[in-house]
Structures are given as structure tokens and as C-alpha cells.
């Protein structure tokens, strides 16, 4: 009979926020608890009764790492509820902003998770063992942020984006510069994959995802979607944004401060691994090459990190294309756009956005210009149960291979990191 096992990982390192993971085995069953240890801030509650135009500004404060997605998704939901239609250029600029955040966040996460696969203890050790590679990666990160600054200004809690307005003017030459720069970044990252593949050793090779259901946004056009009106699940089900509540249910487990979302009672996952599978037909030849070259196994949760890298390469190319396309359409640039008066209307709106870590849902009900009801479902909430389920199966898999306690602990920590959870988002 298998001996009892009790392990606890306090504050998993290299993760945004605090999360405690406990592993318990009794007889043949294993239980992994993904316990968010952040303090809740009750965003959905304290915004009630506030003017709808304030909501995106405050909602972006849910998370400093992925503030742009909360901001843009919230703007989308408020505009839907109030019946505001912004100019097409502004929509493209928001998509650009969103895309830049996906690129930057995923890129930084690849860097944070890479030590698990190279055998280094942490990022500092990695920077010492591979100084040239690290410097190049950091330089690319700086260039991505610089390009973002050209489009929208400050990266964290961008002030230029708000309801029915875009506050930063952008010239045609700036857009052209951003386009060319992102094309260069994409090319460099494509070339860097060779160096990365050499040091990227598989951990837990052969481990399979026990619950292969995933969720992504349904592309409204033949294009990688940043925003959409529909959710799409891996079993082919397409759900309108307003009806998300019929398929996604939330509940709060006692050991965690965050909620857990389930798809018809079953765990599902979101993120780059899901997107790269779902949008495989939209990918460029380079991205497909990368998938083959990096040998991405979509049935292994650890390969989410590789999928993130592929997405970074693909998205930077897509952003370059979008920026150049917009520049070609414009004569001088995009001027400051501001709707004269935001109507004090009533309505309901659900914003869906592609967050770096998966699918983000912002749902608001507005009455006479004031927020009446708010519900935010973040990617980490959707992934939480899936992390537990794959953690349980990973522990069994590792023990069957004769792994020691320390090895099991490291593997589970690496698994949590591979999903790229963001705890401030989960506990909002």
C-alpha cells in the first residue's frame, strides 16, 4: 500500500502574487489544493453606484502586470452597455495596445519559467549562466515596451485609454516605426529559438494533461482575436458573450481566497497552449515552423511555456502588420479622440478579451450611468481547477517513476509556473 504523503509549498516562487500549494496523498488518491493567499479587495463590490466611466480606470488596478487587458476589456464592456461605438482607428489602437501586452507578458513569463527547463535555480542564476542570452532577451523586452510607449504612453495603467476616448495622438511615422521595430523583434526572436532549443530540456516528458478541454475567443474575422463577442470551447461549442453564465459556473473553495470556474462542472484550461491549438489555421508559416522546431507537445501542460514563446513570435509579427496597415490608411496620424458626452444610459455589457494568460470576462450592468452589477472572471480563476487536476495526476505520475519528495515538490511548483497564474487577478 502506498504510504501517506503530505507536502506544502508556501508561496510558489516566480509567480505573480502569493499562492500556497498543498499536496496530500492517502491510499491511491492524491489531492492538490491551489490556495490563493492574496487578500481580496472586493473590486466588484466597491464599484457599485460609481459612474460607469470610472469603472475601467479602477478595474485596471486589479493587476499591475496585466493592467492593459483589464482596462481594455472593461472599456469594451462599458461601451457595449452604454451603446458607444468608437472610431475604427481607435479600435485598432486598442487592439495594438492589447497585443503589445500579450507579447510583453508572455515574453517575460518565458524568461521567468525558463530556469525550470535549463536546470538553473532561478532567473538570477540563469542570468549568470547564460549572460549573453539573458542580455539579449532583456533588450528585446525593453524594445517591446518602448514600442508600446509610442502607441499608448505609459505601460502600467495606461492613462490614454478610457471610455469613448483615446488620449494620445500618434503620428503616421511613429506607427511605421513601431511596425518595423516589431517585425525586427519577431525576426530576432525567431532566430533566438535556436539558442533556446539547445538549453530547453524537457521535464516530465511523457506526462499527459488529464482534462484536455480548453476555452478561447471565437475569432470574429479570419484573424487572431484580441476582442470578440463569442467564446469557443474545444468541444466545438460556441457561446455568445452574454450567455457565458450558462456554461461557466463559479464557486469558492474554502482553502483559497480566489474563486474557481468550471465548464459545465468540469475543469478546463485557457492560455497560450489553448490559443495556439485553436488558431492553428491562422498561424503564419514561421509560427508553424517554431512549433515543429521547439517540438511543442500540446497535450503536456508544461509546454504552455513553449506555446507562449511561439505566440510571442507570431503576435509581434501580427502587430507589425497591423501597425503598418493602419499607417498606410492614415494621412497624418490618429488625433486625440474624445466623445463629447458619455450618455447616462442603462444597459448590460459583457467584454471578452484575450488576456496574456487566457480569456478575460468583464460583465457589467449599468443603470442611469451608474454601475449596478459587476462580475469579473479572470484566466487564473478558469485555470485554477485544471492546475489542481493536472497536479494530482502529475504527482501520481512522478511517484510511479519513483520520484523523491523534493522532486515532486519541484515538479508541482514548475507545473504551477507553467500555467503562468496571476494571483492579484484571481483574487480581485
Amino acid at each position, binding site marked *: 500500500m502506498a504510504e501517506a504523503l503530505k507536502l506544502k509549498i508556501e508561496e510558489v516562487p516566480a509567480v505573480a502574487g502569493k499562492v500556497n500549494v498543498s499536496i496530500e496523498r492517502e491510499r491511491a488518491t492524491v489531492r492538490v489544493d491551489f490556495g490563493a493567499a492574496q487578500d481580496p479587495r472586493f473590486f466588484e463590490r466597491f464599484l457599485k453606484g460609481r459612474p460607469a466611466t470610472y469603472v475601467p480606470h479602477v478595474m485596471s488596478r486589479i493587476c499591475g502586470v496585466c493592467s492593459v487587458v483589464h482596462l481594455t476589456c472593461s472599456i469594451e464592456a462599458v461601451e457595449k452597455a452604454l451603446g458607444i461605438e468608437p472610431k475604427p482607428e481607435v479600435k485598432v489602437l486598442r487592439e495594438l495596445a492589447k497585443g503589445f501586452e500579450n507579447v510583453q507578458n508572455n515574453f517575460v513569463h518565458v524568461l521567468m519559467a525558463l530556469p525550470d527547463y535549463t536546470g538553473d535555480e532561478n532567473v538570477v542564476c540563469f542570468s549568470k549562466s547564460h549572460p549573453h542570452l539573458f542580455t539579449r532577451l532583456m533588450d528585446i523586452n525593453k524594445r517591446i515596451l518602448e514600442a508600446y510607449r509610442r502607441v499608448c504612453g505609459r505601460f502600467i495603467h495606461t*492613462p490614454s485609454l478610457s471610455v469613448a476616448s483615446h488620449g494620445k495622438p500618434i503620428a503616421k511615422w511613429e506607427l511605421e516605426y513601431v511596425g518595423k521595430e516589431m517585425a525586427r523583434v519577431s525576426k530576432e526572436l525567431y532566430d533566438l529559438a535556436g539558442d533556446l532549443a539547445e538549453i530547453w530540456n524537457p521535464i516530465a516528458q511523457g506526462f499527459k494533461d488529464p482534462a484536455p478541454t480548453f476555452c478561447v475567443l471565437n475569432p470574429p474575422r479570419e484573424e487572431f482575436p484580441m476582442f470578440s463577442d463569442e467564446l469557443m470551447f474545444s468541444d466545438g461549442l460556441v457561446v455568445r458573450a452574454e450567455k457565458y453564465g450558462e456554461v461557466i459556473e463559479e464557486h469558492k473553495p474554502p482553502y483559497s481566497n480566489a474563486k474557481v470556474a468550471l465548464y459545465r462542472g468540469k475543469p478546463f484550461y485557457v492560455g497560450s497552449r489553448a490559443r495556439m491549438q485553436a488558431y492553428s489555421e491562422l498561424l503564419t508559416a514561421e509560427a508553424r515552423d517554431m512549433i515543429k522546431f521547439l517540438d511543442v507537445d500540446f497535450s503536456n501542460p508544461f509546454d504552455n511555456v513553449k506555446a507562449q514563446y511561439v505566440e510571442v513570435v507570431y503576435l509581434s509579427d501580427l502587430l507589425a502588420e497591423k501597425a503598418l496597415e493602419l499607417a498606410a490608411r492614415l494621412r497624418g496620424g490618429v488625433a486625440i479622440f474624445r466623445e463629447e458626452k458619455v450618455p447616462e444610459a442603462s444597459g448590460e455589457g459583457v467584454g471578452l478579451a484575450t488576456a496574456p494568460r487566457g480569456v478575460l470576462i468583464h460583465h457589467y450592468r449599468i443603470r442611469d450611468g451608474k454601475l449596478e452589477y459587476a462580475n469579473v472572471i479572470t484566466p487564473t480563476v478558469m485555470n485554477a481547477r485544471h492546475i489542481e487536476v493536472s497536479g494530482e495526476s502529475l504527482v501520481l505520475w512522478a511517484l510511479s517513476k519513483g520520484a523523491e519528495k523534493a522532486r515532486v515538490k519541484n515538479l508541482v511548483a514548475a507545473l504551477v509556473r507553467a500555467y503562468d497564474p496571476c494571483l492579484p487577478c484571481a483574487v480581485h
Partner: protein
Amino acid sequence: MVKVKIDGKVVEVEPGTTVLEAAEKTGIKIPRLCVVPGLYEGSSCRLCLVKTPAGRLFPSCNYRVYRDEEFLASTPDLWEMRRVNFELLLKFHKMECWACERKSFCSLVELSKELLVDGIPVCSECPLPPSECLLLKGELCLGMITQSGCNAECLVSGGECWGCRGPITREDILWRAFAHYKELGFNMKDVISKAEIYWNSAPGFATVKKVAEGVVSRG
């Protein structure tokens, strides 16, 4: 030539040089407002105070050295005295930065940052000229009643001020600012409800609310 020792640094200067000039040679920074070399040396702002090791105080712009002497220019008590002097000077200034063209060329703003004096609104750092002020376009910007020091990050990036640095504590400026809000047709309740987002537990918020009520009841 005479030897002058300021904060332990020795410099040789011509007899008749002021302590301020000697300090500049050694690279020690002494704040000043009124001195314009060759035009005005009346020592009226009293921000350039220095002292002898014995503790005698005098304005450095007006004291000329004719023998070897030692001075202190950067002790904490001197900075505190300079700060108080500057605060007293500012009492006579209207601080209507929202209507002022000077903006980043203003030496008062520069000095207030150096001396950590509060009461300067974000408008002093705003990149928009008064004619382009967001308030004139109907945007509720809290710059007038918010403590400066952020280089108006949000306004530079095309947003409005949300007051994240907290309210300014000088009541007279608050009165003028709220009068200006009222003049432009803003509802005081809206202003307070926006300010609440960041200031609900800020120490100066009670004063802000009191002033807003006062402006309404004045009619």
C-alpha cells in the same frame, strides 16, 4: 587670496567674494530666489541662509569674505529654516497654476520640490497650456486640488488627473480651486465622488469636503 571652508570643502577665492559664489565653486548647492548677479543682491528671500560653526546665521549672498573662514551650508536645521522661509514666502502667492503660463519654467515649483513643500497643484507640471485645459473641455480633472510631484504622468499620456498623490493641504488654494470648478459648471458632488476613489482615507480629505461644501453654500 583667502581660504574658505564650506561643509569641509576648502576653496581659494579673491577677497570680497560672497559665500554663495564660493559655495558654487565647490559645487555645493544653496537655494535662492532673489539673487540676480549684477542686478539685484538685496538678500530678501532668505533662502540662502548659511551659518558659522559657532551658529551665527546670515544670508550667503550678502556676506563677503576677507579672511580665512569656515561655514556650514547643508545641516538639517538650515534646510528646515529654508523650508519655513519658503513656505512663508509662498503664503503670498496665489498658486493658481491652472491659469499660469509659466509651468515648468517656474522657480517656485522647482524650489518646492527641492524643499519638500506641499501645496503645489499638479497643474504646475501639466503639459497642456491654460487654453487647452481639460476642465474647459468638460473633463473632470483633479489636478487643481492634487499634490504635485508625479511630473503629471497621466496628463502627459493623454489622460486626466485622478488625484492619486493625495489632496493638497493649503486651504486657500482649495477655496480658489473649488471656486474655479464651480465657475466652470462642475457639480461639487461629482468632484468629491471622483476624489473619494483615492482619498477616502487621506488625512486632508475632510478639509477638501469642508471646502467643497463651503463653496456650495456661499452661493
